[in-house]
């Protein structure tokens, strides 16, 4: 019995020193990782600083100049602001419409793609990898690439932006939808199968009602993102409020009241739809009573 205890103590000592060695090694690794990270950040910042037109140190004092100019000019012409708001409202509605249509079309395409690429639900199980790759590529191509090419092909207008955002949305939502659909209960599908329902009927009646709240919540989140994307694509030539902003900025001094009006409109719209969608998502997640 006695030597057994001694061995136990020995073993405890062994494991203790092994544990401490492990901790030391982990600390060394973490420290090295930290050094690499800091070095990357510092050298990266210096490269970015060198390759920029104006340096960080020179630019920092000027950072408030432009906002100050815009605010002071807008303040002097404050009486014009409501008129500007009214004038840019159609462009704003166009931007929101672009985002809404793109989200709608993209989400519908995403549902189809997701159901076709979910194990257990797919119409053609062998084609699952194909549809997944299609979604990967749709997600990977930045919307600006598609939009610029479509602007070249169809001229300036909202359609290039709608198509570009819808493609990206279909890819991004498709992946999320497919994850939701994977967790769907298959019993309703089996029930429908047993009474001879076709694939489309099985999906529409058996799967969609189960996953609809989740899909809607993801789609709303995407809508927020798409409003921003739609404004940016407008800036590169797809119409809407972004295009007006670009014009106002290009005209420069004397048009700052217009720029200010657009800034305010855009900011208010983004915040408004963010709040709306987060309230709606909260309601979807926690039932009707909660708001």
């Amino acid at each position, binding site marked *: 019995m006695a030597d057994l205890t001694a061995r136990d103590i020995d073993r405890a000592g062994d494991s203790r020193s092994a544990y401490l060695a492990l901790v030391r090694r982990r600390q060394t690794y973490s420290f090295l990782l930290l050094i690499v*990270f800091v070095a990357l950040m510092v050298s990266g910042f210096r490269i970015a600083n060198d*390759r920029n037109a104006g340096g960080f140190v020179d630019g920092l004092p000027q950072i408030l100049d432009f906002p100050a100019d815009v605010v002071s000019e807008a303040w002097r012409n404050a009486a014009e602001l409501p008129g500007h708001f009214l004038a840019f409202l159609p462009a704003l509605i166009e931007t929101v419409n672009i985002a809404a*249509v793109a989200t709608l079309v993209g989400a519908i395409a995403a549902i189809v793609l997701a159901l076709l690429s979910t194990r257990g639900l797919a119409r053609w199980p062998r084609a699952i990898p194909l549809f997944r790759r299609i979604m990967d590529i749709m997600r990977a*191509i*930045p919307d600006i690439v598609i939009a610029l090419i479509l602007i070249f092909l169809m001229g300036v*207008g909202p359609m290039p932006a709608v198509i570009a955002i819808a493609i990206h949305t279909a890819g991004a939502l498709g992946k999320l939808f497919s994850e939701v659909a994977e967790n769907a209960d298959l019993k309703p599908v089996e029930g429908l199968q047993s009474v001879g329902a076709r694939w489309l009927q099985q999906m529409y009646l058996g799967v969609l009602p189960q996953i609809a709240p989740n899909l809607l919540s993801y789609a709303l989140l995407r809508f927020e993102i798409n409003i921003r994307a739609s404004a940016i694509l407008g800036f590169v030539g797809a119409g809407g409020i972004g295009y007006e902003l670009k014009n106002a900025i290009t005209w420069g001094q004397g048009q700052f009241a217009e720029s200010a009006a657009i800034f305010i409109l855009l900011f208010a719209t983004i915040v408004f739809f963010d709040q709306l969608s987060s309230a709606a998502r909260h309601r979807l997640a926690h039932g009707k009573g909660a708001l």
Partner: protein
Amino acid sequence: MTDATASLAATDPRARAEAGIRRQRRIALAIPAAILLYLIYIFFAFDLPGLASRLRVDNMVTLVSDTWSYKTHVTRDNRSGDVEVAIEGERQGTYAEGAAPDWVTRDGDVTEIRLAPDHLAVFDGGQVRYDVPGYGLVTAEHDGRDIALDTPDGTVPDFISASGARVDITTHAGRVSLTRNRNEVFRYFAGWELFFFTLSSPYHGHAAGEILFGDRIDPDRSNIVGAWQDFWGNPMWRHADVAWALGETILMAFLGTMGAALVALPLGFAAARNFAPVLAIRFAVRRVFDFARGVDALIWTILLSRAFGPGPLTGTLAILLTDTGTFGKLFSETLENVDTRQIEGVRSTGAKPLQRYRFGVIPQITPVLLSQVLYLLESNTRSATIIGAITGGGIGLLLTQAIITQKDWEEVSYYIVLIVVMVILMDTVSGWLRNKLIRGD
């Protein structure tokens, strides 16, 4: 509904179920109907009927054909009578005097251009002859200000377009065009022209094996070094600049994301209910987050480029500011869901507050925060491309420039391929890292 029917409906389960089904059916019909109405409104608001007339088919043809093929121009300047062979008609693709490709043979004032084994076009002084198989010999000649066209049957077939001052003959093998200033023949080849070496490089036209293992081609440099220098400095494709641009885009995404995470972490503590007891601070910090997110990358980019000028730094700061808002929100939500039992456990050993954070909180939240950071890094690689297009930096700038010039669509396709590869690569690396860090092996 009267009280009687209401109470009946409430008591009779069948009537209740039927009412429920009726309501469901109304909703099931109303939603698609609303979507349809909205799409009809959009159909007219976005002027879709007019889209067909605005669609530019010729642009589409140029884009598609440029993407997979290139053309070599054989041009006769009608003023001087000089004949020049140039790939895509560009200066850097011009063949030196006497070094024309083997399908162009010159003999004094006569230039024979073989477009395909049985297609032969000839410049004979100012005259152009093209023997089209299955049709016959087409001759075109300058006649004062006009161009005289002579075809075997005396009519103008579909593949020839002729107006007084311009004649175009298009076949599957190539194109012949005559204008007052120049006579030109285009021959099409598959692929991207001069992708590795331009004509000025001694390595042009040599196979890879020859360069790697063969005799020294340029006496001054070893083959591998020289080939690399000429490839990297290729004046048409500018590989070095493109690589820099890709690096700049990734740099913007990396610096912006990591910077935002570093700024947002302490702020996230200040905005979390269980760590910041003072309501006023919490409220103020949260409004800062909302503001940073609401202003959005587009406006930040515009404001910042006024102060810092175009370049990667501006893009970095724009991403940093926007994502400070996003991270702040995510981090504070994560912190609010921290398990308090672990902190209690650390406290029971007599740990001071800072140690409680270090050993009670940080280990819990690290995997979650890291996964959020990596997720945003992925999405910011895309954003950095877009921001680069606005502020003038990285691959986004190259892409927009190439598209705006509307000339070198093969470069546009090249950039698109690079962007997609870059995005997929970043997604893969970050997915791999996420698994590695969270599973902890």
